[in-house]
Structures are given as C-alpha cells and as structure tokens.
C-alpha cells in the first residue's frame, strides 16, 4: 500500500511538473529550427537556388550553373504577392520571356520541358507546397507591403520568414510548421511599430476628428480575442494597449 501511494504521488508530481513546463514554454519564435515538410515532386524540377541564390563572388559572369545564383528578386516571378492575397505561380509566359534569350541552357532537359508546355499552350500542373487549409486566409499583400515596402526589410528575409531559405533549395519545400500557433508566435511578438507602420494608419488624412486621441496609441486591442490564444499586448507609454498585428479569429478565419 505504501508503495502504491508513494508511486502515485511520484507519478502525479512528475506529470504535473512536465505538463506545466511544456505548457509554459513560449512557442517557437520565427528563427527556430525548421519543421521540414515532405519533399514534393514537381513536373519540372525548378531550381530556386539557381534563380534566387547569391552570385558566386569568384565567378562574376555567373557561368557555372552549379556554383551560384542569379539573385532574382522573389517578387519578380511571384509578382502577385505584393498586390494580392495569393503569391501565385508565374505564368509560363514569364519563364519564356527570359529563357528564349538564354541560349546556354536552351537544350537542358528542364528547359526543353518548359518549352514543350509553352508550345502546347498547356499549363504546368505544379504541386502546391505551402497549402494552408481552406479556412485559413493568409494575405501575402499585407505582409509584403508592411515589411518590404514600409519597413524596408530585404525581400528574401521577409519571404523567408514563412518560406524558409528558398534560395538554397531547388524545388521548394516547406520549412516552417505553418501551424496556427506558429503564426501566432509572430503576431504575439512585439513588432517594431514604425512611423510608417501602424502609426501612419491612424494619422492618415480623412480620419474622423474624434479619433485623434487614438493617433498615438495604435490600434486598440479587442475585448477577448487574445484570450483564445493571444498574449495580452503590452501597454504603451500612454497606457493604451497596442496590438501587434491582426489578432481576431476573424482576421484569418471567415
């Protein structure tokens, strides 16, 4: 009997300790180790590293395909990302636009395949790599506008926050968990609110006068959304709560 009681106390203690520890651990911030998704076979093995990878400093002409990239801006091909909720796959037209002038690789198997599609005027059946469930509405445009255009961060850093270091991959592969908690880990975090960021939203023209008092405070937090998963935002100097980003369920789910 003694053993039984002792054992059970021990077990319960262990359970309580381990669960409270795990429950209290903050979610992984943006920079943590990657959560690699499965490798995906695409109709054309598209070399992201070759297109977006860094130039090889030892090879200014960039002639060796194995040793360096073209440093093409992500938004050059994924052009919808800054204007649209979806980033989009570039139309084949875009690939051809460049590749019809690049004779050096014209006869490689991948490019031949590309031209086959082009000549048949057939769309390439790409597989979707970052496929969120249908009830999640992620908006590329806002993220790009905010971080690239308003905060002047490097494009690859901004895209890489969710898509990982694509410039080192051939076919893209999911690098982050993309689970809701992972998204929240960012929205909870204290983003720097710059003058061109949240502040300007409030100071803009056309804003009704009665909202002037809000100008310094940023967007105020809602009443309960953070309870279901969001950290209560810190108050700023004026004592008002400042949101770090959209934090209602209905910002992403509707």
């Amino acid at each position: 009997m003694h053993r039984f009681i002792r054992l059970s106390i021990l077990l319960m203690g262990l359970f309580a300790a381990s669960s409270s520890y795990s429950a209290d651990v903050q979610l992984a911030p943006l920079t943590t180790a990657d959560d690699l998704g499965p490798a995906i076979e695409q109709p054309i093995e598209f070399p992201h590293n070759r297109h977006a990878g860094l130039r090889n400093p030892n090879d200014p002409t960039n002639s060796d395909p194995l040793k360096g990239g073209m440093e093409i801006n992500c938004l050059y091909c994924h052009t919808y990302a800054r204007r649209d909720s979806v980033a989009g796959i570039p139309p084949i037209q875009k690939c051809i636009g460049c590749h019809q002038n690049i004779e050096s690789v014209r006869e490689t198997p991948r490019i031949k395949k590309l031209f086959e599609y082009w000549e048949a005027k057939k769309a390439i059946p790409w597989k979707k790599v970052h496929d969120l469930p249908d009830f999640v509405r992620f908006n590329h445009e806002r993220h790009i506008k905010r971080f690239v255009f308003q905060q002047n961060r490097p494009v690859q850093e901004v895209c890489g926050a969710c898509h990982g270091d694509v410039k080192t991959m051939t076919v893209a592969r999911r690098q982050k968990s993309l689970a809701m908690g992972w998204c929240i880990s960012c929205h909870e975090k204290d983003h720097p609110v710059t003058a061109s960021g949240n502040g300007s939203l409030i100071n803009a023209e056309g804003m009704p006068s009665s909202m002037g008092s809000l100008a310094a405070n940023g967007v105020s937090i809602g009443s309960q959304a953070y309870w279901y998963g969001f950290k209560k935002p810190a108050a700023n100097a004026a004592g008002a709560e400042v949101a770090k980003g959209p934090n209602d369920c209905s910002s992403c789910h509707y």
Partner: protein
Amino acid sequence: MDNNFDRRDFLKVLGWGGAAVALSGCGNTSVEDGKETVVSYVEAADYVMPGISVYFNSTCAQCDAGCSITGRVREGRVLKLEGNPDSVINRGKMCGLGQAGVQHHYNPDRVREPLLRTGSSGETITWDKAYALIAEKLNGVSGDQIDFLTGTVSGHLKALLGNYLETLSSKNHYVYEAISPAVQRAANLKSYGMEMPRYSINKAKVVLSFGADFLGAWVSPVHFSQQYAEFRKGVDGQRGVLVQVESKMTLTGANADRWLVVRPGTEGILALGIINALGVAGLSLPANVSALVNAYDKERVSKDTGVSTENLVKLAAMLKERSPSLVLLGSAAEGYEHGSQNAAAINLLNQVLGNVGKTVEASASVPFPQIAPTIGNTAGARIVNNRLASGQTKVLFTYGVNPVFTTPAEMGFKDNMAKAGFKVAFAHYLDETALQADLVLPLDSALEDWGTQVAEYQPDGVQISVQQPLMEKLHPNTRGMGDILLALLKQRNPETYNAFDDYYAYLRTALLKNKPQFADSGADDDVFWNGLLGSGIINVSGNLNKLSDKMAVDINLPAPVEKDSKYPFNLIPSVSAHLRDGRHTNQPWLQESPDPLTTIVWDSWVEIHPKKAAELGIVEGDILQVESKSGSIKAQAYLFPGIHPDAVSIPLGRGHEAMGRYAKGYGVNPFHILNRVFDRETGELAMHETMVSISKVGKRVIVVKDEGAAGGHQDGRRIALSVTSDQVDLSEEV
C-alpha cells in the same frame, strides 16, 4: 474576354491560393503539402489576378426591365451579379430575381447539345446538321406558314430577327408574354397618348394603386422600389401615403398605409365612385365626367365594391387635399372581360385629379425603331394557337416563351402544336414547350452572350443596355440566339451576312454605325467601343412623346356579377416577384426564397380568408381541390387574411412538369385551369375571370414555410414595431 488559353485551364486556376473553395469545407485541419495542384496561366491577361475580382457591366436578362448589372468575375468564373450604379433604371440595385441570374447560367439542367426528336426519343446532333435541317424544312414552305413565337424582344436581336423573317417573307412574328399589362397599355394609349408613360411615384404625395404591384412584379420593380423609398421620405417633408385597392394583397399592398379590399372586378366602379366623391367634396368636374359618375354615389359604390363609405370619403378627401397624387393600375384591375373599361375608369381618375403632366409624364421613345422593344401580350399566343389549330402554321419557332405551360389548358396549345410539321425551340432548358418541339437548339445563357436590350419603361431618356459575356461559355456546344439567327440568315442571304463573323461582329458594326448619335463622332472606334463595354449602357435622349390628356367618358362598367353557386370563388392567379410566369422556377434560390406574404417555399398554395376557411372547416395544410369549368388542381390551403372572402388565390410559376430538378414536380400550375375568357376590347386573356369551387380532399400536409407556429404574431414582444404618422417626427431623420 478573349483568352488564348483553354477554358478548362482557365477554370482550373481557381485552384490557386488559399482562396479556393474546396468542397471539403472545414474537413482537414492541418497543413497539407503537395496534395493540391495549382495551374498557372500560360499567358496572363493584365487584368486577371488570381484572388482578385474583376467587374464587367452587362444587362440582366431575368425580366424585361433592362436593369444594368455588374458581374463579379474571378479566375474566369462569374460569382455574383450586382447592380450597375450608373444605370438610371436600377441605380446600382437589384432584385432577388436578377441576382439569381447566375443560377440560370450555372443551372445543371441546361440543354447542352442540339437535340432532334425522332419519334418519341431524342438524339443529339451537330449544329451543322441542325442548320441544314432547318433549311431543309423551310424549303417549299411559304412565308405565311412560318411562325415565330417569342417573348418580348428588343435591341439588335430584334433587328436581326426582323431581317430573318424578311428573308423568309414571313410577317408572322408573334410576341407573347403570359403576364403583361397589355390592357393597360391600350387604355393608356387612349388616355395619355402613349402606351407607357413615366410614372413618378417619388413626386406624388398620395399613390392610389389599383392592384399595381410595383414593388413586386409590375413593369420595372427595382426602379419603382427606389422611387417608393423617396416617396416614403416625402415630398416637401410630407411622407407619401400609399393606398392599395385590390382583392388579394400583393407585396405592394402589404406595404400600403391603407389596404382596401375590393370585390373582384369592381375596381372601375370604385374609381368612378371616388370621382363622384371628389365632386361631392368640392372638386370641380367637367360636365361629361360629372354626368358619367353621377350614378356612382357612395352608397351604391360601397355596396358594389365592399369598400365602406367612410373609407371612400376619407380617401377622396385625402386625394383632393394632397396633390399631386398618382393613380396606378395593375393586373388585378385589368384581368376581366371588362378590363379595358376598368382601366379607362382608373385612368380617368388620374386625369380628374390633374396628375397627368405632374406624376404621369411623357416618356421618350427609342430613336431607332428597329431596336425598340416589341412588347408581348397574351394575344400573341392566342393567335398562334388558332393558326396552329387550323393548320395554317407549318413551321413554328419558339424563343423565350413557354406557351404549353402558360396558356389555359382549354386552349389546347400542346395538342395544337403537334399539328405543325416542324417545331424548333430555341431554349435554355427542356421546358414543357421545348419537349414538344422537333428540334431543340441550346442557347447561351445571358451571362455568356452578346446583345443589347431596350426596356419599355424608361425612367429618364432612353437607356440601351449592353449585354456582354461575363465568362467563357460553360458548355462548348451552346450558341447565342444572335449567332444562330446570323447563321440562319447566312443560309438565306450569304452576300449580306457573310461579312459578319459572328453576332459580336454584327453588334459592334451596328453600334459603331450609330456612333455619332451616342458619343462624340470624333471618338476613335476602339475607344468608343471599350468605353461602351466598360459602362455597359448607352444613354440617348430619345424622342419625347406627346402627352395627351383627353378624358374619355365612354366607360361602361357592368354591374358586379352575382355568385355562381357552382363556382362561388374568384380565382386570383397571383404573380410573385421571383417566379413570375414560371420561367425562373428552376433557380433554387428563388424556390427557397420564401414568398414574402405567406413565407411558403418550394410549393404552391391556395390562399383563403380565415373567416371563409372557418366556415368551410378548412385549416392550414388541408389539400384543396380547386375546380374551374376547365379543369382542377390540388394544392395545400393557407389561411391568409389579405384576401377577399369570396376569392381564392394560387400563385403562378410553379407546377412544372419539366425544366429540371429544381422545378419539376414542385407545386401546381394555375394557368391550366384558367377559363378561356378574354378582354372584350383587346382580346387579352382575362386572367381574373375564372370562377372556381373548392373542396377538401381529406388530406392534410405540413405547409413548408418559414413562419413558425406563432404565425404572424409577436405575442406582445417588442419586435416589429409600428407607429402612426402623427406620433412621429420624421423631420430630423438622416
């Protein structure tokens, strides 16, 4: 919208982005990699961005009001129809019927291939074969033996149709609308000098409507609804007063300040009675009018119509005091043998009140008569029916009509149709008429087709509405009506018509030819054309008709008929805003959208006054047999307070025996039991003249409706509140 890529690819693009709609709904909860395919464009049009909607202006083809619409298109699919704010007709607004246009387009029961009847079965054939067949069948048939029976047509389609008839040397184009204010048009022509003047509800302080359901299905409901909103806000700060006189409450009646129930058919008597009362109240009447209404003193009128003398006097006093007013007349007043007389009496009231020129104003007529609308009436079907019966018609073309469904069974249209040698139906669905045809040619939906439409009722100048495809064809083997006519014309007259590749080319050429009348003549053709497609409408000033105000006093109203003991009830076939004559019954939104007054869905019903029902021991849901001289139907009873106790009402539009999964087998068709009685002057079918008997068949069903067990009662709770105008201050409202 010409695209270089295949339609299928175009549609598949919807697989893009998280924005796609997957039928799994909320099924999977985790991130999935590599399961779904994204198909990129081969070549992307500048304006197409996945995830972002583009809007194209076009024209609503659900009724003939000519509302201009804006279609929301995304990834090549039209998603939703919204109103075009630039249109003077609908000013950015829509009715439920119009919005259901997408369900006409996406309807799963559309005809997809040309169908040829061989004996009792049908087979799909190619278009070439279909055209060849038509040419073959027309061979050796004289023009006089070829009939076209269509619905209301306007715009360039009408012009093309006229040209085709000309090449066939046929003059037999009959335009048929089952529900059409044709009697009224004839009366208007006499009274005002034009068939359809402009009515300004918004300028009137009092609107007295004799059964005109201008908020529901009458003439141009979206336009009139907007006028009504202004009218309620008031002229000179005085809120407009609506008085509705009818035997069965319509949607407009339900919104009236005073709803006066009138004995069916006595609307004209009431109108003359009001004139009499106006005279008594001190309005000076012309001598001949005075002589006419002399006999219609309030006691007699009250006895004949069932409207109390008190109400009559009050109404006359208000009409006299609050000017201008407006008197409208609708199908309830005109659907009798003496419908024309009723209409004349009601128009006379407008004239006596001095409304002509104030709230009844001159309309503009279309400067291009070849595209002006040809308005349908019921006489069209009657004539064709007679011609079919007598064997005069050898080849019959039908377009936009369903006479087998919408004519009284007594007329025998279905059987007579069999007498024609060759029947061609241009159809979207296999409706009752198409089923009788020998050749069924599948039409493009209104959202895939080019065209122009000119509405009869024009609130401001003349608006020509342009119809353009909002997306690629859904089914590869359907054709636009214009394209078909063009192909047929090419058979007959290749020299002239081979110049046009398709109807689009024809339309563009025709419109560009008249460019000087539409825009700066100096404008570049492409700029003009793109601007036109962008706006979706062409506004021309039109020729203002001359309003006449000639009081006709040769009105001869029959005394109310005594009740026939065998058929004691007047049958009122009611017209709902959504289902009209039944051509849209297969649009599920409309089937499931409750009737505003009874909240019944998906079925027909017989409205009967609760008092009468109590007398006859009828309760809600009892299946009633409604029998007229010419037939009988069975439908569930619904106890409805807004109906004359001597009348029963059954809505039109349901009771299809064909037309696909959403229409077939739901409800009954009261068209079929209407008696073959016609207006004496115009020959229009007198839809309200049918007398019926009702009897319980001993079965009871649950009425499928939105209304709960409390009926229309609020049970003392403060839910829907009402206040009288003297208790409220509207002046400060925003």
